[in-house]
Every structure is written in C-alpha cells, then in structure tokens.
C-alpha cells in the first residue's frame, strides 16, 4: 500500500491554496465559497454530478476562468489580475483537457516544442530532446512526426499529457481526461496518468473513473452545487460515504 499524502492543517507550503472561491456565470453560482488545499505530491480526485463546479474549480486555478472573489495561491504565487502573476502560475501548472485541444496544424513533436521554446526560452535542440523524451514516456514517440488528426483519441490525449509535461509543471490539472474517449482507449490514458502519479507529480483530476480514483488518489473530493460536500480517502469514501448526496451520486455512477 502506497503512502497517502494529504495536506496537514499545519503544512506551511501547500502547492495550491484555494480560499472561499466564488465564481458566477450570470446569476448562476458555479462556485460558492470553495476552499481546498493541495499538498506537494498529493493526488486529488474531484468528482460530482455535472454542473457541480469541479471543472470550473480547476479552470480557475490557472485562470482560464476568472474567479469573482476569494483567493488562489499556487506554489507561493498569489493569483491576481496582473499578467505576470497569471503567466507565472500558468507556466507551473499543466492542464489536460477533455477534448485534447492539440494544435492541428503542428506535428506531435511541434505541439510539444512550441511552449518550451516560446515561454521557457529553450533552444530548439533542447526542446526537441525534451519532447522526444516525454513522448517516449507516454509511449508515443514513434508517432512524433504525425499530425494530431492522424492519431486515435487515446494517442492524442497522451500527446496532450506529454505537451503539458514539456513545460515541467509542478502540478497537473486533468479536466475529465477520458470522458471524450472510446471505452477501449480509456485504459491507456489512465495508465499514463497512474505512472505520472507514481513519479510523484502533484495532481488534481476531475474524473468519474472510480477504479482509477481508488488506485491513485490520496483524497477524493466530492462536489455538488458549487460546494465541496464531502472529502476523504478513497477507500472510506467509496465504501461508506457520509452524506446522502454522495451516496446518491455513487449509486448513479456505479449502476
């Protein structure tokens, strides 16, 4: 049994601090005062019914959605409206989307090299070397010169993971990384994420893959209606959830 790593109340340097986060879309409260801390190396699985705010929460962490009030600190950098803070945080936070969002006009290799060269200032040979190494890690290096549309969904998502890793982020955010995939491709992507978790990457993953959550999560956070309803270690959460809402949700996704 691997050692669970969760944030202790006294941890002075959590990787992410979210405090009383509020996000509205018009009159709809997507997040109504969410607080969450993520320790270095911690793996959190966020789950909950659709519209519960879990995607919005992780999209606020790298400022793809702008929060209305509350506080976000990533690796000691407070997220303000200043472009510099936003970019500093974004370059430390990797993100993987449900729909991959690879750049269709660039080859797999170029997809992985663009940001390290433009943002990190890497020279082409170094960016190339890093991209090849990470594509090898996600076992897709033999497709490096193909274009995204020539790959299967599972392959595309693994390229997207490699692309994010090429920035050498300190934390990875996954926004339903397997929801858009055909069932037979879910496994290859989850395996890639599990390996990443075993390497000690800090991650927050929005997913309904409960087997995956059991395997890697240090903590499962259950959200509903824009709030965190319940959290706990995965074995407890899946076996005996405390709240009725979590019970109802688990019943729905298991059957």
């Amino acid at each position, binding site marked *: 049994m691997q050692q669970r790593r969760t944030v202790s109340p006294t941890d002075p340097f959590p990787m992410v601090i979210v405090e009383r986060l509020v996000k509205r879309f018009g009159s709809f409260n997507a997040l109504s005062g969410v607080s969450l801390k993520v320790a270095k190396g911690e793996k959190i699985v966020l789950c909950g019914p659709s519209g519960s705010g879990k995607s919005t929460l992780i999209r606020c962490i790298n400022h*793809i959605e702008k929060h209305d009030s509350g506080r976000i600190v990533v690796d000691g950098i407070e997220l303000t409206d200043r472009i510099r803070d936003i970019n500093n945080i*974004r370059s430390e936070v990797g993100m993987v989307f449900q729909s991959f969002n*690879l750049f269709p*006009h660039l080859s797999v290799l170029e997809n992985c090299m*663009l940001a390290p060269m433009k943002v990190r200032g890497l020279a082409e040979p170094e960016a190339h070397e890093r991209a090849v190494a990470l594509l090898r890690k996600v076992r897709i290096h033999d497709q490096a010169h193909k274009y995204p549309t020539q790959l299967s969904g599972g392959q595309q998502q693994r390229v997207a993971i490699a692309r994010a890793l090429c*920035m050498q982020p300190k934390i990875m955010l996954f926004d339903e990384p397997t929801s858009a995939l055909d069932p037979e491709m879910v496994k290859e992507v989850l395996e890639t994420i599990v390996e990443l978790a075993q390497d000690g990457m800090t991650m927050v993953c929005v997913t309904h893959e409960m087997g995956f959550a059991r395997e890697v999560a240090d903590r499962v956070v259950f959200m509903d209606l824009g709030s965190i309803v319940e959290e706990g270690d995965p074995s407890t959460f899946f076996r005996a959830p405390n709240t009725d809402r979590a019970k109802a949700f688990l019943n729905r996704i298991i059957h």
Partner: protein
Amino acid sequence: MNSLDFSIVLQAWPYLWSGLLFSLSLTAAAFLVGMFLGTLFALVQHFELRVLSQLVRSYVALMRSIPLILVLFWFFFLVPIVLGHLSGNGRPVPVGATYTAFITFGLFEAAYYSEIIRVGLRAVNKGQFEACQALALSTFDTYRHVILPQVFRVASPIILSQTIILFQDTSLVYVLSLTDLLGAASKLAQLHGRLVEMYLAVAVVYLIISCAASQFVASLRKKYAIAGARR
C-alpha cells in the same frame, strides 16, 4: 468577315507581356498590403478594441459598399487636393497614376481580406485559445503560432478566390490611363482590327494564370491537408 489570324498576337506579345507584368505586380502588391492590413483590421475587431474597432468596421463597410472604380477615381482626383490643402499652399499635389493604383488596390483589398480573416478567427475552436493559455503562451505567440496559421489554412480557398478577383480587377486601371494586360490587348485589338483574336488570346492568359493559382493553392492544401482537416 476575315478568318482568324493569330499572328497579330505574336507580334504584339512584348506589349502584352508588359501589360501582364503590370497586372501581376499590382496583384502581388495589393495582396501583400491587403493581407497585412486585413489581418490587422480583423485582429482589431477580434480584440474588440473600442474606438479602433468601430473605425475599422466603418472603413470596411465603406470600402465594400463602393465600386473599386469609384475609389480609384476619388483617390486619383481627391487625394492630390487634400494633400495640397495639408501642405498649406493649396495647390494640388499629384500622386501619380501608378502610386494611386498601388495604394488604392492595397487599401481596397484590405477591407475584403479583413472580412475573410475575421470570420476565420471566429471559426477557431475555443479550446485552441484555452490550450495556449494553459501553456502560458503570450497573446502574440498564441496568434502568431497557433491561431492565425489555422485561420489562413482554413480560409485559403476564399483568400484565393478573392485574389483571383483582384487579379481580374486590375483591368480597371484603364480609368487612370495605365495599361494592364486587358488594356494592352484592347488598344492593339482596335489598332489592328483584330478584336476576336486579341480578346481570345487574353482570355487564355487569364485562364492559365487563374488555373495555375488554383493548382498552387490546392497543392498547398494537400501538403497541409491533415492540418486543417478537423478539430
């Protein structure tokens, strides 16, 4: 009626050639200026810069509602007067027919290209912008390396159509007494009384050049086919 005699076309070839070169260079210059300004105009509207985008919208609407031939006239006759007033002594400052043609075509085409690119920008998937944000790419790099290349690829057939129309529209420079391919042909046709031969020959030249341009773009699209295929 005389039978067709195409020897006149061969004799007239040097003159036709110079006309063709003028048409081509005017097309190339107007394409470059038009695409550059058009992209700029489209971006100004895309970013919804308050005052600027209002100005650009008005400019595009104005240019698109006036026939090119009228714009050429105005530019040729009015700009010298305006320049004269600006310079203070009130005497018109002639711009010259060639400059008028190049500047007007560039500015006019910019309005059309900007509409094409504006629509192309709207068609780019939102996820592409989000991926760039997540990778911390600057706005400049986002547009330079990710968004605009996709727009140009998707829009290339429409950009090509517009450029072929531009190439054919260069014949309008006859109102400025400039001689393009069609102008050269019609002068010689009337001089020698060989209208059918000349106009047939010129039509073939237009046909060849337009087809070659289509082929060129088709080959480019084939080369990058995977790229714009689907998102």
